[in-house]
């Protein structure tokens, strides 16, 4: 039973390695996520954000523009996750349990 876990771990590492060596190498400028247009002919999101962030919001920091403007609904959901995490901690640790 214990050996089975290690076999699963080694097999999982092997799966990860076979997937990883098929990726484009680190720092490759011509990899698909860094191109201007993808295979279907539409603009790639990262390149679009680099070129249009300052024009749209007059803010030099592109990460702030994406976080607050283009993907602000994502940020809203994330803020609500943070708030719910705090409320969950409050209720997990303050629940009054009736003694049997």
């Amino acid at each position, binding site marked *: 039973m214990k050996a089975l876990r290690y076999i699963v771990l080694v097999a999982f590492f092997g799966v990860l390695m076979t997937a990883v060596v098929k990726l484009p190498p680190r720092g490759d400028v011509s990899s698909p996520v860094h191109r201007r247009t993808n295979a279907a002919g539409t603009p790639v999101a990262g390149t679009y954000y680099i070129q249009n962030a300052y*024009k*749209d*919001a*007059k*803010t*030099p*920091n592109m*990460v*702030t*523009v994406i*976080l*607050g*403007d283009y993907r*602000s*609904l994502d*940020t*809203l959901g994330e*803020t*609500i996750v*943070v*708030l719910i*995490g*705090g*409320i969950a*901690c*409050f209720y*997990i*640790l*303050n629940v009054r*349990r009736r*003694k049997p």
Partner: protein
Amino acid sequence: MSEFPEHDPKDHCLDESLKEPTDSLIVHATARGIAPFILLIGLYVFFHGHYSPGGGFQGGVLLAVGFLLLRLSLGVRLSQIVMPHRLTLRASAIGALLFVAVGLSAVIMGGNFLDYHLLPIPGLAPEYLRYFGILLVEVGVTVTVTFTLVAIYDELLGC
């Protein structure tokens, strides 16, 4: 091992020593001296997020670290003056509500949810309206992250 140790359910505090100020003079003086500067750096990182790496999340975490350093050195009882325990979760809810209010004000002006160039601030071009919309949203994110992290520390300590 069958007999459980006695445990009082009302006594939720894990370690009594975390309630009182630390005995070490060096830790006490250093933490009290350095905490205002950490808060200042947090405000700088937050307000300079439009022009340099930074923004709501990073500034919020730095502000929370400033409060938590006071919590660790002064003890929970004394640092209640700086940041009361009953304030934290309510303030983080106010941050999330500010975010939603910015989005809904754009809806009321006739646009989509979180469509910043319709915000009701007169006399600004649409690009600069988006600039201030991002700033308002980041205020809400910072308030939520700061007070939630302080609240989680308080709840984990149980004091």
